[in-house]
């Protein structure tokens, strides 16, 4: 049976987990797997963190309002700008984006939910854990104070001895896990769950931008994960990744951070571009001009976004060739960005423009992002950048693109989709006041900062002298910041009034173009009564106003209550919260006591096993083949392995970059035992063969052989780990440890993380073996073994690369 949304069989059980009233409501939210509720959870959390980050900004601006000010101490100020940046990026803009990914993407593609609803919930709870942990540092009195991009070696234990940086590292790692899981989920959803007839090029632009963003997340987070692992190991275990005296290169942190950091800014802005690409056509009553070009531009921006990271390092001394190369690459990216702006203008040209609040914010983005993008072009030239970087000029640039771009886009989305999500309309009068206050306040706050940069004011300074010409612009900027605050208050009033007694919203208040307007406001729990027909790009508009492209499947009748009762809906689950809780406990343990780490890890493993087995016997979950003919879980594994390529690639690249730089011995050729490692390599390769046999046995229903080969694979994996344990023990006895030299740091972390992957694989295979022992692994479960096999073969291939580059090549 396919996982086609118009399925049959069981109606999902209600949240049968608690008593009546308020408790039931709370439990309902804690166990929800409904993408709409998860979207609201993201949005509400993001808004709270946004307010927190905003307060931090206002205190910063108060301190800088006049020279030599004493509102906060230097220590407090440095923590404020660190927390403000980290909060706004990871806890405000990204989860606001996630609110729209979650709520809207399934509706926009005509699906009833995402590919993995429980993983979706898991992403949210892990995000919340990370956000709470980061802000717990404020309560603990030790917030991080090293800047949101924490350059090594200021972040070393020596120069930042307190818990602040540790809070920062652990929180970011948790937030990274959340984003990664969501990325896999949405890639599979968008590729595999589109309604029949919705080809890729017929997808709304917002969905395209979301897809590009998820790929960016999947591939950009691994490098920062590795960079943070290096920092964590330096701080906790005495490794030398950022230890200059041991031969390290401090540029490593910057490269790893910005290989993540630059795609991150596209992660932040592309959803806003997608929103504008929906809002402008709707309120101009014209299609998006050049929609395919806008789509291709977004893809190109995402792709090339991986090639420009060192434009953040023009002052770092990389040399003229690197400077020139990254300068050209950065300028090239301006082209697809400019193309989008022109296409948006052409969309408006000749239209019949209705000046709703949503449109105001979208227009704001077009104008303000143009300014931000142009100041970015100035930064793309290293000679100019050498004056502008690390000054208030770049602060102005980044706020023009992040507030003028991302935030204005998000507010456009909020005003646009609020009726759909809440069933009520926001006030247009208050909406326009919101916009104009925000627009005026924002420009007053940040345009003068261009001048401050030109007049040489460095960034991240808690105070400044009065005789440098910076006074007036700083005061203006502070006033503007408070006007932004008032604008946000106006929005909150608007939202409150709307929720309390706003006018009820019809299904299609804007004469919309896309599928979400085809269902009620808010949608029923099952999103669509019947799978929506797809008549082309802007399908709903074509349905209403023509021209309609031929349908690929016949329109299914909406059916009555009986049809709804036959839908399979994802059941609520307590395991996402439990897994996230285990991770939070382990994270808190990392900052306090190792016992909590152990408890947390055990808790997490237990919760993951329960999570994995929760629907093992649910018939609707047996076949998850999607629109591309591929099982959701296989597609998810492939995406995950793609990110793992970047993970191990970063580790190997660091190993190679640091090769030969150790200040003391031993060197690789003096300590590595190639003959013995060749045996363990052969063993691991053979285990892949056994894995192939195991899968074949499961697929043909031969349970005995399946058990034999599954256990065999795990056993060979254990042998490999045994060899590794032997090798590590020999090395430690010979005095070669993690802390010994740079080679020790890179070798043990690389092979240790690989060994951890093997160990996880072994546990996975043994669980499948136990399932088979209990008679619960049939031919219908072959795909579960198949994805374990994909993972296992991948870990093998990585080992071949490691063995070659670390052991064999001198």
């Amino acid at each position, binding site marked *: 049976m396919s996982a086609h949304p118009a399925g049959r069989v069981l109606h999902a059980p209600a949240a049968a987990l608690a008593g009546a009233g308020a408790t039931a409501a709370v439990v309902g939210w804690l166990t929800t797997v409904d993408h709409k509720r998860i979207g609201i959870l993201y949005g509400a959390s993001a808004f709270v963190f946004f307010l927190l980050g905003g307060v931090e900004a206002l205190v910063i601006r108060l301190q800088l309002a006049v020279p030599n000010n004493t509102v906060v101490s*230097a*220590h407090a100020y*440095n923590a404020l700008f660190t927390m403000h940046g980290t909060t706004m990026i990871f806890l405000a803009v990204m989860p606001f984006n996630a609110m729209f990914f979650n709520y809207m993407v399934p509706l926009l593609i005509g699906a009833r939910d995402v590919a993995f609803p429980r993983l979706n919930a898991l992403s949210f709870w892990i995000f919340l854990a990370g956000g709470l942990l980061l802000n717990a540092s404020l309560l603990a009195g030790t917030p991080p104070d090293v800047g949101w991009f924490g350059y090594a*070696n*200021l972040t070393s234990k020596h120069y930042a001895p307190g818990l602040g940086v540790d809070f920062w590292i652990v929180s970011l790692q948790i937030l990274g896990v959340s984003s990664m899981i969501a990325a896999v989920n949405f890639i599979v959803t968008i590729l595999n769950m589109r309604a029949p007839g919705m080809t890729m090029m017929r997808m709304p632009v917002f969905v395209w931008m979301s897809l590009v963003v998820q790929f960016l997340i999947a591939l950009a987070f691994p490098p920062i994960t590795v960079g943070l692992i290096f920092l964590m190991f330096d701080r906790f275990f005495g490794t030398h990744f950022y230890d*200059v005296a041991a031969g390290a*290169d*401090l*540029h490593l942190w910057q490269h790893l951070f910005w290989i993540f950091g630059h795609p991150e800014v596209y992660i932040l802005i592309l959803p806003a571009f997608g929103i504008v690409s929906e809002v402008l056509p709707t309120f*101009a009553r*014209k*299609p998006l*001009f*050049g929609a395919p*070009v806008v789509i291709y531009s977004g893809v190109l921006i995402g792709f090339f976004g991986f090639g420009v990271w060192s434009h953040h390092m023009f*002052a*770092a*001394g990389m040399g*003229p060739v690197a400077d*020139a190369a990254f*300068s*050209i690459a950065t*300028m090239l990216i301006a*082209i697809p960005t400019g*193309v989008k702006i*022109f296409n948006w*203008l*052409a969309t*408006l*040209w000749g*239209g019949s*423009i*209705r*000046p709703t609040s949503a449109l105001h914010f979208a*227009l704001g983005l077009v104008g303000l992002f*143009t300014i931000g993008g*142009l100041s970015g*072009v*100035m930064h*793309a*030239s*290293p*000679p*100019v950048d*050498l*004056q*502008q970087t*690390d*000054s208030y000029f770049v602060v102005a640039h980044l706020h023009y693109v992040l507030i003028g771009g991302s935030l204005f886009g998000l507010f456009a989305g909020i005003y646009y989709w609020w009726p759909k999500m809440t069933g009520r309309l926001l006030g247009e009068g208050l909406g326009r006041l919101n916009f104009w206050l925000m627009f005026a306040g924002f420009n007053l706050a940040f345009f003068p900062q*261009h*001048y401050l940069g*030109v007049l*040489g004011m*460095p960034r*991240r300074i*808690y*105070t*400044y002298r009065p005789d*440098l010409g910076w006074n007036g*612009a700083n005061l203006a900027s502070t006033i503007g910041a408070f006007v932004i605050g008032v604008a946000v208050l106006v929005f909150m009033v608007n939202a409150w009034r709307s929720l309390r007694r706003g006018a009820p919203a019809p299904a299609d208040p804007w004469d919309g173009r896309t599928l979400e307007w085809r269902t009620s406001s808010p949608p029923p729990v099952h999103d669509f009564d019947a799978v929506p027909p797809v008549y082309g790009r802007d399908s709903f508009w074509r349905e209403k106003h023509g021209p309609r492209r031929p349908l690929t499947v016949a329109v299914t009748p909406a059916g009555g209550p009986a049809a709804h009762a036959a839908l399979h809906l994802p059941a609520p689950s307590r395991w996402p919260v439990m897994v996230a809780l285990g991770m939070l406990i382990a994270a808190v343990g990392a900052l306090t006591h190792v016992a909590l780490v152990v408890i947390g890890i055990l808790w997490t493993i237990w919760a993951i096993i329960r999570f994995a087995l929760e629907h093992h016997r649910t018939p609707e979950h047996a076949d998850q083949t999607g629109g591309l003919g591929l099982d959701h879980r296989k597609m998810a594994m492939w995406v995950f392995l793609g990110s793992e390529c970047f993970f191990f690639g970063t580790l190997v690249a660091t190993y190679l970059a640091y090769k030969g730089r150790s200040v003391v011995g031993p060197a690789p050729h003096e300590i590595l035992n190639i003959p013995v490692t060749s045996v363990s390599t052969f063993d691991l390769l053979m285990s892949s063969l056994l894995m192939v046999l195991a899968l074949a046995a499961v697929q043909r229903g031969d349970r005995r052989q399946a058990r034999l080969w599954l256990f065999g694979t795990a056993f060979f994996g254990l042998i490999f780990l045994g060899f590794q344990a032997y090798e590590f023990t020999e090395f430690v006895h010979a005095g070669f440890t993690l802390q010994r030299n740079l080679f020790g740091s890179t070798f043990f972390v690389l092979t240790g993380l690989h060994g951890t992957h093997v160990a996880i694989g072994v546990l996975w295979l043994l669980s499948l073996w136990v399932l088979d022992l209990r008679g619960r692994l049939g031919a219908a479960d072959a795909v579960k073994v198949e994805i374990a096999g994909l993972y296992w073969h991948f870990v093998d291939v990585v080992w071949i690369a490691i063995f070659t580059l670390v052991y064999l090549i001198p």
Partner: protein
Amino acid sequence: MPSDHARGTLGDAKAAVDVRTTSTIGLALSLGLGGCAWDAPMSTVAARSDVAREILHVYAIITWIVVGIALVVGIALAWVVVRFRSRPGAPGMPAQIRGHTLLEISWTIAPAIVLLVIAIPTIQVIFRTQAAPPRDALQVRVLGHQWWWEFRYPALEVVTANELHVPAGRPVALTLDGPDVIHSFWVPMLGGKRDVVPGRQNRLTFTAETAGEYRGQCAEFCGVSHANMAMRVVVDAPDAFARWVAAQKAEPGEPAPGPAADGKAIFARSACVGCHTIRGVSSGALGPDLTTFGSRRTLAAGILPITVETVTAWLKNPPALKPDAKMPALGLTDEQARAVATYLIGLK
């Protein structure tokens, strides 16, 4: 590099260009908000060196282009929104135009051409300003500390802190390094910034053109007192520079009897000697060299002018003036601090 003979006329021409470029930038940037002092101490558009001038040249080109594009797009946006506003009673639906291939090609190629105009001088200036310094350049080692600047002239055997003297008209080759964290050396009027990265020797070469004093400040967040890490660069005419070098290398004379002599005695028997060098008196290496402290105009990396009052206040409690300063309060009485201050100010 131009010869001494040519430099006179070239210098005049360059000065003329500088004034023009500066006012061009000023005009371009003043749109909307006028009245800024473009020659403020940290101005990035008041070029006083060859590198700064090269940068300003590219800066001017890019700024004009960028402002022009912003105006075009902004005006187009405003016009479109007003012109195509929906009017009540206007007939149904606007023409549903989906695209126009020629238009797409044009507005892909046009930005590419504009970027080419920006890229060519950019690449040229990158390579020109990062060329190896000439053999006769004055070599200076810059060491960035938390939170002060050390300057060492190996060929001249001069060591000083927080105040960099260079001769006008002669290339200066800075080598940047540091014993602690990443800092960034930035004197806007003399050029762009370059990071001080421990373990790497970054280079910055420039030729200052006119005598004068310029302000610099650390431009890479380096800890609690990052905001308090300024510096002064004094560009001397060649003979004034020679005099300065001689004064730096001379043995400090005996201080005048009275507070200065008392100050020296207090200094010599206090913890000061563990961190500071005063030639002939102490050889500490953790803090700034104080041999010619009195010849400087500011103290504690440019955060205060040097007067008896400010130096006394500093000596009594450095972290009060510079949060987390590595120099501790030494428990000096008011009178003792004053005496030491008088001594230090006399070290010229």
